[in-house]
């Protein structure tokens, strides 16, 4: 066969130089779309960075490259006792970290049950989770507000205007989508691995902690990260439940900088927002190594 030229596939002729029009039609327009998308995505970030280093910027006067770069906005953040940015920062990181950690744990536990056990109400439970998730959490804000006030009467540490209470409220909405997401991943881990571990002597708990969780690292990292970011960004519930300046989170606190009609402090606001992004970026870079495919490779089949 090798000596016979197959019919229907003539040798590829030397291509003539492509014209620009042809290049654009075939390939160039993709670059254009990419560049537009990049501008769309990066402009706000660049604007915030620029504003953070500008003295007294405003929405209209702010420029991406400040004419006289300054760190004044950052110093303001940490020197104003009425607006304790450092305190907010710590509050937020604590709430976000705890929420992310327990969200992963709660959702993974629920997902394990939904993925591995067969029990009455399993299907209904799954549908219910999805259904509840379709209503935004702040729809229940009034109810949450009343609950938190009442809890505060009985057990103040987790009641109204406390970070503990806020964390609990966030965790209340933790399962929904995340449980679905993690369950979907668990379902791809062959059940034989569980069974094999059970025969080897493992309890459900040992299967969960020792086998399933390590194998599900990618999805756990994603859920943890999303939950962390979501908590940092959450404003509506936090602003309703937190009132003491020292208990505020970043989203609520920073909003205070731009809430007044004639004294919008865009400088400290953007500087604060920029600093708030740092831990997210660090966490993402740390978790990135877990977000890889093929963890279950080599388990089954040859």
């Amino acid at each position, binding site marked *: 066969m090798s000596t016979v030229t197959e019919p229907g596939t003539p040798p590829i002729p030397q291509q003539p130089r492509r014209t620009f029009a042809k290049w654009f039609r075939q390939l160039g327009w993709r670059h254009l779309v990419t560049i537009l998308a990049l501008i769309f995505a990066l402009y706000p970030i660049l604007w915030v960075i620029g504003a953070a280093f500008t003295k007294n910027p405003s929405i209209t006067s702010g420029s991406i490259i400040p004419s006289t770069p300054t760190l004044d906005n950052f110093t303001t953040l940490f020197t104003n006792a009425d607006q304790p940015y450092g305190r907010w920062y710590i509050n937020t990181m604590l709430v976000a970290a705890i929420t992310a950690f327990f969200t992963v744990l709660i959702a993974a536990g629920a997902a394990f049950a939904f993925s591995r056990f067969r029990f009455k109400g399993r299907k209904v439970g799954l549908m219910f989770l999805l259904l509840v998730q379709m209503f935004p959490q702040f729809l229940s804000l009034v109810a949450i507000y009343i609950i938190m006030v009442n809890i505060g009467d009985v057990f103040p540490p987790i009641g109204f205007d406390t970070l503990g209470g806020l964390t609990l409220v966030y965790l209340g909405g933790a399962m929904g989508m995340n449980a679905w997401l993690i369950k979907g991943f668990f379902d791809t881990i062959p059940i034989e691995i569980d069974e094999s571990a059970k025969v080897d002597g493992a309890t459900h708990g040992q299967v969960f902690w020792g086998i399933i969780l390590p194998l599900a690292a990618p999805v756990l990292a994603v859920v943890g990260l999303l939950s962390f970011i979501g908590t940092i960004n959450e404003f509506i519930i936090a602003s309703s439940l937190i009132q003491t300046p020292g208990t505020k989170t970043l989203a609520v606190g920073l909003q205070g900088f731009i809430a007044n009609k004639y004294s919008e402090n865009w400088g400290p606001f953007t500087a604060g927002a920029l600093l708030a992004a740092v831990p997210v970026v660090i966490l993402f870079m740390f978790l990135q190594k877990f977000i890889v495919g093929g963890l279950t490779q080599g388990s089954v*089949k040859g």
Partner: protein
Amino acid sequence: MAEMVLTDIDKVYENGFHAVKDLSLTVADGEFLVLVGPSGCGKTTALRMIAGLEDITDGTLAIGGKVVNDLPSRDRNIAMVFQSYALYPHMTVGENIGFGLAIRKEPKAVIAEKVAKAAELLDLTSMLDRKPAQLSGGQRQRVAMGRAIVRDAELFLMDEPLSNLDAKLRVQMRAEIASLQEKLGTTTVYVTHDQVEAMTMGHRVAVMRLGELQQIAPPQELYDAPDNVFVAGFIGTPPMTLFHADLVIEGDAARLHVGDQELALPMGVIDARPSLRALSGREVIVGMRAEDIYPTEAEGRQALNVVVTMTEALGSSVHLGFSFAGSPVDEARLGSGLKNDDEHGLSALAAEGGVQGVAAFPPRIQTRIGERLTMWVDMGRLHFFDVESGRALR
């Protein structure tokens, strides 16, 4: 190590499917029992019930004299090798093998020692630090074996452990598993659909079909004296040729009518199977093994005129597919479903009518498809089965 006794085990799934029916069998201490049958015969379900991965609907399961129906897998002290191996992909080979010990909180030194010993036995020593993904299929299979043997379990359960290996490796591992079991002396239940594995590995073989145990016997006995038409057709490659024949016994002479042919039956055959005597003038199912059909005439052989439909030169022998006028065994009516894999293309040929069969001849037989041939059947080695029940007539 222990004896295992299954008494009237039933498995009915929630959807009403009766997967295993009244399964009773005893596996002796140190025995290697093979459960064999076509897909869907309930053999894997039976194994999973023994492993505790599937609830037992009814009946009792005792391991080492203790009823374990309600014990979870982890408390049954069994080890299982899965068809897919089911290795823990995030652990090294060493951790995989030692997992069962680590779970049981054995001291690290003990685990290391046992793992090293198992690895040596399975020739895995140089791979202890690798992850399963870096191993070949055969090596993964051995890791799965290692995970089982390191535990000193009372019972080994193996669910088609060789079916993912290539043909050559399968033959090699077949021998290795059998000799390993011999060495360790652990009671073993081995599930397979491959009857070559069943014949070569087991001390005894249990044939299952549609959830029911058909026969349990040592391999050779299973082959030589199948209890019913299904076992006769299932065990043996190429499969036994089965057909209907009219049995006539007149005084000191007996014969079989098959289509328009007549085969004289020596009285010795009748004498050896007393129940045949009552069936004179009635129809029986006759079975003949491929190796009991010869190209040449000899004492005790009867001529059977056939048409060659297929030749398969295997080197050491030639498998000749043939057909002759007669009434083939209606598998559906007997519900016997012979063999699943149609490796001799018999079902295609069956459409042409008549009886389809296979003979194993010495190599270098010159013949062509479509040729008329006289074959010589060793009448003393025929198998007889009841037309209605399909049970062996002895």
